[in-house]
Structure formats: structure tokens, C-alpha cells
């Protein structure tokens, strides 16, 4: 086989492979256009908890975007990290307090004694549809807290935006 023939075969092969990838990506973007739009505009990317049937009767926490959260000062809100304490110690949002979802029932009484019910709380976990922040926020609302928000992007969105991260206990 001569060189020009092989070169032509290779270029057809690469063109077809690129077409397969491009076509599939276009379809994927079209199917998930709403999700991608939400992510790019900083809105919540849809949560399994929010979409659960039957949850419409329960009070749902309001979402808060990265832009809104980063504009707030530590005096205005109390940040709560709903992840396991090991993940919290590896890195958390500045001034955030650890309140793992799995420990809420044993720590709720102490928490209520320390934090007044009118305080604004912002709960986060590991992002990407992580449910712990929603579950913790709903539990806090049921316990009487009036203004509880969920930062659904959580630790990954905060860290990847280049914002400061604290390690260990605050």
C-alpha cells in the first residue's frame, strides 16, 4: 500500500471517530441542557431530595448560590457542614461548624441551646446531589429554625472557585 492511500485511510478513520464523539456530545448536551444551564448560571443542579414525591407537603429549604453566599459575611449566617467529621477536618468553608447529618439527633438539643432560632443557617455537604445538606436543613426547619438555606454546590464548588478553605477545627 502506498503512503498517500494510508494517509487517506487514517484521515477518514480520525474524521469518523471525531464525528462519533461530536455527535454524541451534542446529543448529550441537548438532553441535559437544563442541568448544564443551571450549573453554568450558578443555580442548583437538581436534587434527588427536592424531586422526591411527597416532599411537597414538607417545608423545603431555600437554595443559595455560590455568588450569594460569597457576598455574605460570617456575622450574617452560620455555616453548617453536614459531611462526616473526617471530611470536615480535611477542609471546610471558613468559619463553618461541623454538624454531620448522622449525628443530628444526638446534638440537636445542644445546638438549639447555642444557636437562636432566628439565626440564618446555610447548610452544605459534598455537592453533586449530595442529600445530607437537604436532610439536615429539613430537620433544622422541623426543629424550629426559620431561615435555613442549602448551598448545593457544597465543598467542591467552593474549592474549585478558588475561595479560601480552612482545615481542622475552627
Amino acid at each position, binding site marked *: 500500500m502506498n503512503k498517500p492511500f494510508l494517509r487517506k485511510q487514517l484521515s477518514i*478513520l480520525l474524521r*469518523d*471517530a471525531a464525528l462519533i464523539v461530536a455527535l*454524541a456530545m451534542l446529543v448529550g448536551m441537548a438532553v441535559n441542557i437544563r442541568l448544564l444551564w443551571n*450549573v453554568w448560571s450558578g443555580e442548583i443542579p437538581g436534587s434527588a431530595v427536592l424531586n422526591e414525591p411527597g416532599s411537597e407537603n414538607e417545608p423545603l429549604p431555600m437554595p443559595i448560590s455560590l455568588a450569594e453566599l460569597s457576598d455574605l459575611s460570617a456575622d450574617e449566617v452560620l455555616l453548617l457542614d453536614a459531611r462526616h467529621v473526617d471530611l470536615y477536618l480535611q477542609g471546610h468553608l471558613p468559619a463553618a461548624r461541623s454538624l454531620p447529618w448522622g449525628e443530628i439527633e444526638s446534638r440537636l438539643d445542644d445546638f438549639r441551646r447555642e444557636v437562636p432560632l432566628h439565626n440564618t443557617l446555610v447548610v452544605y455537604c459534598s455537592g453533586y446531589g449530595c442529600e445530607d445538606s437537604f436532610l439536615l436543613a429539613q430537620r433544622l426547619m422541623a426543629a424550629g429554625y426559620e431561615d435555613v438555606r442549602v448551598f448545593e454546590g457544597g465543598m467542591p464548588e467552593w474549592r474549585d472557585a478558588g475561595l479560601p478553605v480552612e482545615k481542622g477545627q475552627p
Partner: protein
Amino acid sequence: MNKFRSIFYHLCRLLLGGIFLYAGVVKVMDPVGFAGEIANYQILPYRLNFLVAATLPFVEMLAGSLLMLNYKVRPASLVIGGLNLVFIVALSSLLMRGLDIDCGCFRPGAHSSATTALWRDVGFMVLAVVTFVGSGRRGT
């Protein structure tokens, strides 16, 4: 001997196509969960994890379907080989960094360690090479 080679080639093609079609279908159901699995690798920035989660399952499904339909087998196996190479590099980087996470290779939340996934991807790579070379001999 030629008949044996032909059966072996078609088995590899169908197996590889079926695996990638299945892997794409199960991931396409939960793009947010899959984005979380990709984020565990700590390689891509936040938004790109969602873009990959939204598009990668469709690449897997299309390439897998083409292999099963015996149409455009060479470029489809090249795409799958390329994906496998990316998966192998990502999994190796996980192991080198000592991160122990679920690979997110199939259904989000299904548990499979990085080492198991790495060996499985090496096996898929062998299938992709056999399919690519075999299809070249047939001109498909």
C-alpha cells in the same frame, strides 16, 4: 483457523459494544450522581464534571451501539480505546494519590474499587485492540 478468528473477532466486538452500551445507559439516568463520581477523582473543575457527566454516557452508548450493529467498527473501537486510555490514566492517578473511591464506571453508587476497575479497563483495552485490528482486516 479463519472461521475461529472470525468468531473470536465478532465475540469481542459484541461483548465490547454491549458493555459500553450498558455502561452508558445506566449512567445517563443520573447525570448529577455521575458528576459526583467524576468529582471524586479531583481532576476536573466543578462545572466540567457536569459537562463530562452529561456527554460521556452518550459517547459510550453511540460507540457501543455502532460496534453491536457492525457499522463503523474501526472508528467506534478507536473511540472506545481512547476512552479506555483516559479511564486508565485517571484510575492510575487515583491510585498514585492514594485516593480510595468508587470508580463510577457503571451505575453511580455501585461499588467497585479503583484497582479492580483498572484491571477491568486493561481487559476492555485488549478487546478494543482485537476489534480494531480485526475490523481492519475486514474493511468495516
